[in-house]
């Protein structure tokens, strides 16, 4: 299924993506300079809280952003193709075929008027020249692959006749029916119960093994990220603040936001008197602070943070958008350099290819 390709060559490469929304209240920079890379067959977990821009990033990659939103700059390269420059009809060949997407709420993502079988068959016939019968056969086959018993009967049922977990399986079946190379999953298990979530995650892992598919997994749940991801990118207020492989991000987190998040979540089996806290709230997108967007909540904030921090390399393959030195100590430049010094330093420190 997947073409032979150097495992370090990216399947999807996003460089400096910016998606802005011109709302009545002002310009919202939902995604502001996001770069990420997904290797074939690997899973990238994109972590962040509400408003960080992770969903918009996914929609931008799929070119599903509508007015008043607009991808203003950046490049998205998939399998060598530049997705931003692609004409719409060619993009439609990519969407649902080479890149598939599943969403959080299966009830609103599946059409309530059509049967499940029809919806999957539609995806199949849209992207390949097969007969109606063959498309339906493939639909039934997909339903059984995702573990739905009695798939022939289920294919004739409508979404509302199925439970939440089943509907999510149908979504996965639909997404995988065209054998995509990349699956974008936007909070696929957030709306599901814990035991159902476990089923779906195991299912995704098994299918990933079988098809050699890459996954971009968007979530706010650090447990899910740890479970599923090879690489992790952490987003905050429209920017990537930290990125590396999963073990490094969890064990050796550098950015104060990541560290704060990891310290503040209650963990099973660890009973503490008080949880660590990240003070403050996510900044209002219409009123972003100057310089580092996290400074108002950061326990290490210093004057240098009034200058936008560079996305710097902490160790090879591990980047962090912070002024702190790679070992977590004070910035090399000191705590309060001049704006010019800071700007110059930022240029040199910024990683060219994050």
């Amino acid at each position, binding site marked *: 299924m997947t073409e032979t390709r150097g495992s370090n060559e990216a399947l999807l490469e996003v460089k400096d993506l910016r998606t802005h929304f011109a709302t009545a209240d002002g310009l919202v920079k939902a995604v502001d300079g996001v770069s990420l890379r997904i290797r074939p067959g690997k899973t990238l977990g994109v972590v962040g*809280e*509400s408003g960080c821009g992770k969903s918009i990033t996914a929609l931008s990659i799929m070119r599903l952003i509508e007015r008043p939103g607009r991808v203003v700059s950046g490049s998205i390269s998939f399998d060598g193709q530049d997705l931003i420059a692609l004409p719409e009809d060619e993009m439609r060949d990519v969407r649902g075929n080479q890149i598939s997407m599943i969403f959080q709420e299966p009830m609103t993502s599946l059409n309530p008027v059509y049967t499940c079988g029809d919806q999957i068959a539609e995806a199949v016939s849209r992207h390949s020249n097969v007969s109606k019968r063959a498309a339906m056969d493939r639909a039934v086959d997909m339903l059984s*692959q*995702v*573990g*739905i*018993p009695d798939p022939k009967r289920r294919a004739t049922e409508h979404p509302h006749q199925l*439970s*939440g*977990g*089943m509907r999510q*399986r149908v979504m996965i079946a639909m997404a995988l029916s065209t054998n995509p190379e990349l699956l974008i999953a936007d909070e696929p298990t957030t709306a599901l*119960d*814990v*035991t*159902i*979530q*476990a*089923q779906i*995650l*195991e*299912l995704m892992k*098994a*299918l990933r093994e079988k098809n050699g598919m890459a996954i971009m997994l968007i979530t*706010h*749940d*650090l*447990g*899910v*990220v*740890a*479970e599923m*991801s090879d690489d992790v990118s952490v987003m905050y207020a429209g920017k990537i603040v930290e990125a590396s492989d*999963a*073990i490094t991000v*969890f064990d050796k987190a550098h950015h104060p936001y990541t560290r*704060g*998040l*990891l310290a*503040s*979540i*209650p*963990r*099973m*089996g660890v*009973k*503490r*008197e*008080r*949880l*660590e*806290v*990240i*003070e403050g*709230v*996510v900044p209002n997108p219409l009123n972003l602070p100057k310089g580092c967007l996290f400074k108002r909540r950061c326990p290490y904030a210093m004057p240098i943070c009034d200058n936008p921090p560079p996305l710097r390399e902490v160790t090879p393959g591990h980047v962090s958008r912070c002024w702190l030195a790679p070992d977590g100590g004070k910035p090399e430049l000191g705590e309060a350099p001049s704006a010019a010094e800071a700007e110059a330093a930022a240029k040199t420190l910024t990683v060219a290819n994050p």
Partner: protein
Amino acid sequence: MTDIRTPNTLTTPPPPGAAGIAEADTLVRVDNLVKYFDIRGGLLGVSTIGAVKAVDGVSFSVKRGEALGLVGESGCGKTTLGKVILRLLPATSGRVEMDGQVLFDIPAKGEKPQRQSVYAGKEAMKKVRQNMQVVFQDPYASLNPRMSVGELVGEGPLVHGMTDKKEREALVRDMLSRVDLNQTHIHRYPHEFSGGQRQRIGIARALALHPDFIVCDEPVSALDVSIQSQVLNLLNDLQAEMGLTYLFIAHNLAVVEHISDRVGVMYLGKLVELADVDDIYARPSHPYTVALLSAVPEPDPHRRKKRIILKGDIPSPANPPSGCRFHTRCWLREQLGRPERCTTEEPQLRSLGHGQETACHFSEEISATAVENAVASSAPIPTAAV
């Protein structure tokens, strides 16, 4: 002249978790609580064609000063249970007693000997309500958008006789400072605040009447991860400072573990396990609890544990399985060769000693090997219900 409860009238609670509080008085007693929602159908929608058995015979008690956590998935009835205890929803049958005052005592259908339902009267109810409050899940829907913060937090005292505006304002300011909100916000409106702040307003509102008992219905589920810890710390602090008793309803097991002294696990309207928090998490005694704990993904990439994957979906509470409700998905039953007893006899909550109660016929068969086998036999592509 008001009869608002003031901090002076509170008794100091015993420290939670202290040994030898077997004598600790019970604050809330729930006996055999049942809540069915009728499903209407037929001509003109008048006949009842079925019932959603949201809560189907739950009994437990909450000790003064403790935090009792209640966990479960969709359809387990935990939220309904909270509302029925507070008499925000009418119960179908059962008895709830709050600090000695009977809130209601409705005989079960077909109960012998026949007796009348007993309800606390309007006056008595109003008085009791000062003592039991609630914090809701949705910070956006739980505050009336047309009322200012001062009006919202002050409504409780106002309704209970504190008509003096100055007195109320002083009380509101005190509450706002306790929840770490700026006192100048007293004149502002809910839409001007973030989710976490609104939740604090909701907590302040619940505290304004100085209740002993607060039902927290998923108070942090709708909040961002980085805000959850702020609110959880606040709830913990307030419990210690004001001697509160919590019924903490949530679906996030880690959150519940953090705040609770004891935990109850619910499944399809029934309480299947009830134990001290340490026991539940370290030595779960019901196969559902075991599976639940196994299913939670841990934020640690080194420990990608193998899990017990339950088969199938959660059955509908309108049509629960016979006998033990969990038997259709139970891994232990599979291990034991599908004993008949699970389908014919509904297990009652029984004590295993040291405060741990379980509603399973075969809890003693749960061993490390059994769990390992269950994990191993969890299909790589899990199938849905048979």
